[in-house]
């Protein structure tokens, strides 16, 4: 018998933000919540002078990472392995973050900013959700690389062998989670913010499957009108642009150097859209997750994983070594929200011998297994993925026990 939380579940909503590591956003919570695998405050990296620089609770909303930290495959390799060149027996040590940032023309002092993290009071929304619902200690990006290939894992369960930002094309028989759902008589949508921001899922999905798209405005309307699809994927606003009637629309993706507070407001608005419709609130699970770490420090070594059968050649990776998709990328914040999740739930990760490892293939993997049950064409990584709905229990928290954000 599944728990009541799963039995009553009708909607899964995934909000994928941009380019922030777990420690940068949630690492400070360890002091108050020791089960959260964040920072002790003693973690450090060497700078270009060899001086050890400790993590600091001095992250700024904007203007601190205005050189976009490197998060392409070779840069992330440097961050994870500290500059040890590829070869047998090299050990990941998470010691190359400052070195990596310093290669981007930052001064020695400015390169230290990559070790910065937010104190809880700076991120009231993310902190509230992480401590009121379930936080995953071991959710990693799928590839030690940039956005497009990582987001591909959230849509397809694979990046089809890509480790970069280039266009890729779907290889049969793999289908996106949206196509799988629709073909099986279910409902699914990708909601992009607006036409000026648009979507990152262009060629394969927007060009060929425009019916599975909606705007964020439509998402809010669907929440209000009880017409939300069974599965929804939300994209934040990716750029600053003029709004209707002379207003200003701020990027809400939290990609450096976009304002982190605006991302907080976007997360809060998305949560509120579900929370303020009681029927929807009791039947929906919301996952807030980041696509990759954006080059920003995290202390947890990414674990090995099941290879998905693809290989990126040495010239594609840029490291001089091929990559067989057998290691995950750097850890990112991931929070599961539902009134069936007990307050203060922490899902242990690699710090615990019995911990669980999650990555973005868990998204189509979980959605497929929940709504479609048996589906033969799931990718290798999906088949090996953990179900992120396991924090849902039998107990529905009272309405007065769950917060609402005042925007």
């Amino acid at each position: 018998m599944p728990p009541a939380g799963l039995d009553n579940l009708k909607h899964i909503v995934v909000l994928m933000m941009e380019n922030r590591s777990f420690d940068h956003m949630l690492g400070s919570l360890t002091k108050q919540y020791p089960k959260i695998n964040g920072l002790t405050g003693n973690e450090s990296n060497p700078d270009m002078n060899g001086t050890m620089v400790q993590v600091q609770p001095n992250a700024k909303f904007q203007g601190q990472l205005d050189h976009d930290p490197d998060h392409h495959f070779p840069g992330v390799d440097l961050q994870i392995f500290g500059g040890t060149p590829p070869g047998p027996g090299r050990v990941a040590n998470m010691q190359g973050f400052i070195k990596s940032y310093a290669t981007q023309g930052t001064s020695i002092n400015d390169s230290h900013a990559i070790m910065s993290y937010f104190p809880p009071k700076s991120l009231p929304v993310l902190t509230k959700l992480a401590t009121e619902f379930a936080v995953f200690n071991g959710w990693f990006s799928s590839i030690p690389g940039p956005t497009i290939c990582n987001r591909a894992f959230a849509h397809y369960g694979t990046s089809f062998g890509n480790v970069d930002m280039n266009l890729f094309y779907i290889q049969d028989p793999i289908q996106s989670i949206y196509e799988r759902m629709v073909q099986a008589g279910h409902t699914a949508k990708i909601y992009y913010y607006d036409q000026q921001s648009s979507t990152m899922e262009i060629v394969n999905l927007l060009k060929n499957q425009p019916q599975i798209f909606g705007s964020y405005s439509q998402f809010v309307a669907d929440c209000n009108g009880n017409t939300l699809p069974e599965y929804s994927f939300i994209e934040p606003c990716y750029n600053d642009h003029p709004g209707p009637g002379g207003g200003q629309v701020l990027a809400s993706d939290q990609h450096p150097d976009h304002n982190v507070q605006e991302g907080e407001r976007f997360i809060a608005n998305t949560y509120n859209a579900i929370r303020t419709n009681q029927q929807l609130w009791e039947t929906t699970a919301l996952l807030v997750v980041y696509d990759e770490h954006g080059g920003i420090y995290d202390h947890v070594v990414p674990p090995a994983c099941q290879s998905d059968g693809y290989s990126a050649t040495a010239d594609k990776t840029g490291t001089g070594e091929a990559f067989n998709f057998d290691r995950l990328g750097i850890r990112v914040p991931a929070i599961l929200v539902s009134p069936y999740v007990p307050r203060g739930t922490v899902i242990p990760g690699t710090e615990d011998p019995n911990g669980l490892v999650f990555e973005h293939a868990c998204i189509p993997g979980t959605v497929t297994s929940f709504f479609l049950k048996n589906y033969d064409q799931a990718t290798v990584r999906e088949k090996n993925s953990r179900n992120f709905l396991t924090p849902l229990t039998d107990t529905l928290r009272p309405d007065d026990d769950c917060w609402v954000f005042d925007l």
Partner: protein
Amino acid sequence: MTKKYKLMMKVPKTPKSAYDHGRFISSLIEHQIKHFSEVEKSLLKPGQKLTDISKIKTELQASKYLKRMTALLHPQGADKPRRAAQPKKPTKTAKGAKRKSKVKTKRVKRKSR
């Protein structure tokens, strides 16, 4: 009638100074535009010229190109962004209501911010 909630948390507003549509585009937006340019090639009619995306340097320029292309591919997405319905706090006591009115006065005074 809008429901009232017991546990409400105020979320700080983003300062207006955060807005900068003249910001240079990131690698992410640059690649987003490149992907749209590939789509544009397949949508060109005889005599039409491909947009020169090498001239797109700022977020404003990027947003205009993205809007034009997205409108072609997904005209249904033209609606105005909206916020979730704003929830109400529980009814204030007289003391609480008085405090709220003081805050309002302060906000009016800080209009130059």
